């Protein structure tokens, strides 16, 4: 899982796969250019490429399958409405998409005053059913604790450890310096460790 413009992880990872097709960074940039020019098909391709990442990012924050699906779809509609603003900034498309996702999610949750319930995790579609059985209990506990992290820390944890981004990309999305991301990351892990340790006691 790699973002466009990820220099840290190099060319071998600067490719994304969607529906069996693999896209190089230059191909995704070209798709963004075409989409910014009004090409719906190119935007559809981008949707296929980034659907999983955006869905995952949203899901881990709302923890409701239906809500995550609705928000994910809305994020792409919003992105399409303002895709022209991506012209000249094609390499940061994914960061831009995450920012839209974050803002839209926050607004939606505020509007609906959604109460997060851990019971909703039952509806998760795990990528591996075997793994699901083995790790569900532990995973639920971890996920629940991530939910109660302060907003900034939660965002760093999800972007870093669940969507696999690096500090530079996270900094772009959150509008913070890499040093600040490192500190938030440490604080989040510290809080989670204390929480998990406390729960076990």
């Amino acid at each position, binding site marked *: 899982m790699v973002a466009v413009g990820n220099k840290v992880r190099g060319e071998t990872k600067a490719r994304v796969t969607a529906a069996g097709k693999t896209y190089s960074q230059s191909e995704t940039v070209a798709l963004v250019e075409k989409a910014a020019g009004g090409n719906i098909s190119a935007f559809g391709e981008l949707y296929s490429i980034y659907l999983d990442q955006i869905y995952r990012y949203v899901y881990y924050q709302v923890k409701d399958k239906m809500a995550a699906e609705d928000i994910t*779809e809305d994020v792409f509609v919003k992105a*399409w*409405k303002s895709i022209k603003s991506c012209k000249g900034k094609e390499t940061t498309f994914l960061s831009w998409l995450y920012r839209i996702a974050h803002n839209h999610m926050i607004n939606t949750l505020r509007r609906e005053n959604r109460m997060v319930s851990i019971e909703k995790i039952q509806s998760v579609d795990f990528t591996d059913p075997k793994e699901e059985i083995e790790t569900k209990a532990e995973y639920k506990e971890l996920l629940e604790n991530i939910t109660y992290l302060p907003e900034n820390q939660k965002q760093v944890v999800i972007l870093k450890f669940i969507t696999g981004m690096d500090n530079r990309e996270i900094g772009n999305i959150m509008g913070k310096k890499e040093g600040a991301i490192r500190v938030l990351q440490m604080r989040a892990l510290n809080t989670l460790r204390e929480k998990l340790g406390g729960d076990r006691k």
Partner: protein
Amino acid sequence: MTQHKLSEALDECLTRIRKGEPVRNCLAEYPHLQKELVPLLHTAVSIEAAPKVSPSDKFRRVSRSRLLARLLEEPARKAELYEETTIFDRLGVIGRIFEIAPVQLLKVAVPLVLALMIFSAGLSYFGLNSIISPSAEQESYCTLATLSGSVQWQGEGSNDWEMAEDGMALEEGSWVRTATNSQAVLTFSNGSAVKLDPSTVLMVEQIEYGSNDQSPVIVMNQWLGRTSSSVEKLADHKTHYEIQTPSATAVVCGTIFNTEVDEIGATTVQTIEGLVSVGAQGEEVYVAAGKQTSVTPGAPPSIPVVSGLTEGAAPVIIEVVSEQPPAEATIIEPEPDVEATEPQVVAEQDLSADEGAVVTEDEAAAEDGIALSWQGEYNQWLILAVLGSILFSFGMIMIFRRKT
């Protein structure tokens, strides 16, 4: 020890672990921080190792169709489609740069700008999309998504209508019908989509996505109602997209259009982007963007006229009203990479961009493959370019005079 040092050590360890280094190797470099680092690294690794959620297969199948349908209905975006940077915008920017630059630069810059304009026109003509689009083998499928109300379908050879399931795959020979308050969208794996408005009956006659050396072929029979099509092509393939109605056949490449068939079998085809060929009774007209043609049963297509569609209207509308069998298909092989432009099959025919033209099948076949660059949208584009050049030159002269 400061938090800053610990956060840096933690991040360094996480980066190295992510690259595959054992945890102990990282810890060995920070012996004085091991006590703090170990539990933090353990927590981080646990999160990364947790199973990842993914959208359900059904959502994945349906959502793209639904999204494309929503995008086609976005009035704001529709308006923006026509607000691309014009040549005047570019000239304006260049003019401002020249205003603050030494006058001598004009001698170099003017020919350069003209060369760029010619180059960009060339790129448009030969299809920039063909250069930058990814090439990929297409998976063959047609997915039905219910947008609202109840939608029914009928498999090939079946006489019973069944409730359609959102996200279901349709095969060749399948029928779809929408109720009076229902809408559905069919999405094909090459990115093309057709939206069915209420009270529409449509049959998927042919879907063929080939391997690398084959062109996708999509053929549908629209018996009743109104559809909106958005046709996309792969960069290295020409897509044959065709809708047959009881009175006409609409053949499209790389465009957006509406088709409407009324209760007496009359067909109306409206084009929002690109160009659509409409054939009936051995005659054919080309419907450019912003135009529409009507076909009554047994008659040739009418001369295209301004459609009067407002911004945000559905792209390609075909409307049909008849129980008669569809007319014989007139298959045209559009040249590849002519997105939102006229197909080269109309080359050198006396086709007016404003009025459309009526040509016979024989004439069309005889002229097949000959390029026509001075028609329709290109014509408008080139006129704009010429006007822009004149205005630009005039502006430069004025600036030069003021400075001297």
